[in-house]
């Protein structure tokens, strides 16, 4: 049997773990910070809770994402005290971050709409 390129591609994809789309986590972090400054643990918990545990956020993706956002000037960080009296770093959305959140949300909505339309063409017609 001859392998078609598409089949080869599909087989490769099946072996790979499904990653969170590039930039998705950034968007979720920005959205979470909209309600006010919180620390890393709270960000992770909030995303998990709000997504009803569909999305899990581990250290390996959270902290690099925070560094990235801070470097790009979308969030700022400062030390504060947590609810149980521990020193923790609180992240706050900057003006640039707010703007970024609006554009990114718009983009995301258009993207999901487009994907939904492709995946469920019938509903579109209805």
């Amino acid at each position, binding site marked *: 049997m001859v392998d078609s390129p598409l089949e080869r591609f599909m087989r490769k994809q099946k072996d790979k773990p499904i990653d969170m789309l590039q930039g998705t986590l950034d968007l979720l972090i920005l959205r979470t910070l909209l309600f006010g400054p919180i*620390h*890393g*643990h709270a960000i*992770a918990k909030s995303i998990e809770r709000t997504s009803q545990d569909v999305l*899990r956020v*581990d*250290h*390996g*993706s*959270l*902290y*690099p994402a*925070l*560094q*990235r956002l*801070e*470097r*790009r*000037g979308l969030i700022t960080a400062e030390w504060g005290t*947590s609810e*149980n009296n*521990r*020193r*923790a*770093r609180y992240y706050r959305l900057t003006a*640039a971050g707010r703007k970024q959140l609006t554009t990114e949300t718009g983009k995301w909505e258009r993207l999901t709409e487009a994907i939904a339309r492709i995946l469920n063409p019938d509903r579109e017609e209805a």
Partner: protein
Amino acid sequence: MRWWSELRYVVKKLNRRRAERELQEEIEAHLEMETREKIADGLSREEARYAAHRALGSVALATEDSRAWWGFGRLEELLQDLRYGARMLMKKPGFTLVAVLTLGLGIGANTAIFSLVNTVLLRPLPIAQPEQVVTLNFGVPGRGVFPLIGYPEYTDYRDRNQALAGLAAMGMAPVGLSNNGINERIWGLHVTGNYFSLLGVGAALGRVIAPEDDLTPGGHPVVMLSYQCWQQRFGADAQIIGRSLLISGRNYTVIGVTPPEFRGTELASSPELWFPMMMKPGLEVGRGPLKGRTSPVSTIGRLKEGVSWAQAESALNLIAAQLGREYPQADKGQIVVLTQPGLFGAAMRGAVLRFTAVAMGVVVLVLLLACTNLVNMLLARASERRREIAIRLAIGAGRSRVLRQLLTESVLLALLGSALGLALAYGAVAFARFKLPVVFGFTQIELQIDWRVLVFTLALSLLTGVLFGLLPGLQATRPDLIPALKNESTLGGYRRSRLRNVLVVAQMSLSLVLLLCAGLVLRGLQRAQQIDPGFNPEQAVEVSFDPGLRQYDRERGREFQRQALERVRSLPGLQAAALTAHAPLTSGESGGKGVFIQGDEPKTATQAPIVLTTSISLDYFRTMETRLLQGRDFTAQDDAQSPPVAIVNEAFARRFWPGENPLGKRFNFTTGKWIEIVGVAQNGKYSSLAEEPESFVYLPMAQNYESKVTLIARGAGDPNLLTATIRKEIHGLDENLPLYDARTMLEHMDLPLAPARAAATALGGFGALALLLAAVGVFGVMSHAVTQRTREIGVRIALGADSKEIFKLIVGQGALLVGIGVGIGLVVAALGTRLLANLLFGVSALDSVTFVGVTALLTATAFLACYVPARRATKVDPMVVLRQE
């Protein structure tokens, strides 16, 4: 705004320890919160801690990936690579030392030669908009052009042209400066009044020579000093302006000092004094009977804004044609060619370009050799590091990333090498600065390591670093990991050694070419020592003087010269003494004149063949031991009242009267009375030892007065003592007359050989270096080959091959490489050595003695380099080898 906040972030994170601590603390806090939640869910503390770790993933990965955002990206990587590279180099000090030395020599040679090229060809003159300034060359098509013209013709070009914003003239002349009881002959430059304003050069002190200083002949006794002259001769006296100086017997008022960086526009001559053109002795202002031929000046012009080089040239040629119609006798057929100033117009530019091209070519060859050796060394090292590199590739480093790191290492080596090279070049330049003026008669070539040289060296080292790093890097990162990790040798090893073989062949041919060049130049020098210059330099000394520098007129000068000769001749132990206007083989001196033969078609001045001449006193031929072949010597009867006579050399006689008796034939120099030939002298060398026989005319000094003369004396005993005595005798007549060039004739003979000697030294040094590099290369490759073939050799011995056969096997492999290399080298050399022709003094560019000798030397060296590995091969113990499998 964004880049600003980003920069602030990066700067804050520069404190790595703090950033690290904060991140750790943050993650720890996070873990702790998670743990507490788990404990609240009912787990024990320990279980809760584990569960938190599991839920939140790898802390190491999180820190690693976070760190990536703190740095400068690529730059950070580069620093990392540099640090790693430096560590690797320090770990192998022997390798590093050899590599840096090799590169240092190669790059140093290039930097030194480039600083010469920079000085001679690249560095702009320190004048305003140097690119607009041109030198005018004059001549007749097919006969070459020269940057000289008569002063009256200069004024015609100056006044008639529309293409130039200005045209200035200048003429170099020796003058006698009397200062603090010291009388010296130094060089002065007579310049027209527009010279300084045209060049845009101001005065460092006082004022420059202006048009109003250049109006009436002999009427403006003012002088400017060069900065160096002011510093060295007058101790930078701030009160110098307005002082009166005694120059060539006349008082001149100092009006200014030129800026330190300005030394005139010609590299080959830098004047110490500047005078108005009108103060030039014997300047012919109008188009008189001499037609300007006696006052040659060089010219320098500035193009008008928006006028191109070609436009200016054609405009000037229109004027040349006009002048040719108006003065057919003097200017017919004359053309104008523009060149850049600095190298005595078109005449010297070609020679300098050829010389620098050859020198640059040689040093580039040496650098290539050094590079091939480094490629070889790095290839050998790459096979040692195969495992390390394979591991890096295996754990996920990209090939380009590893390659980048290897290249960083080689560029680092190259940078170290160029630092050493720069130091060597500094040394060489300091040495040459002290030595060069003597060698080439160049006074202004002050070699400097300026920014151009530094940029060149930096670029060169980056280039060489990539050049010698890329090939081994590509080899080392070839992705056949498995055998490398298992420490097996593969077919890759074979391919690697094939590449090294090619390099050895290249090295052999390169070093053969260099050695052949050096050998040929040495043979040329050897030949030069045997060339008959047409006189006997042994036991003879010379002293030059010019009564004109003390304002002696013709009669007093003649009398002075007669008395000086008289006094010297009466010295005890002296065999003979005579005067000549131009001693043969004096660099920068020639008495070339256009000659007309009686009975020939009348020619214009520009068409007349040029021959070299000199005026001599009685007894010249006996003093020089130059043979008279025919006719008679000059006698006391050949004086100003009697008919003009001349003695010509054989070449002159053959050129104008082939197969005829030249005695009694007559000729003249452009104008003037017919001169009768009374004798024929043997040929000699007049301008250069390498020249073909030149036509030459001797005139009696009694009929052709020359103020500047060289006294030549022949006597037994210590020549230095003789020179000193002669100086004393002449100073006895006038203690204020500058005497110069007092030396033995053998010393005099050394000067024309200096360029060849310098070339032989440089080529010999580079050739020896090349031979050493090539020998190391052959040794490396052959040792490597023996190591690779150990098993094969073991098997052969086990099957009964004796050590002689094994020896032959290995040496045969080496001989093949050497043979191919030598073959290629011989072909390249045969095509290339003719570039050296003017250093060879008649030795053929394909001289068989040199070719055979050098090839033998190289082959013998290569054989030695093969011998040791081949001996080692015969010592292979088959049992040990076979058990290893």
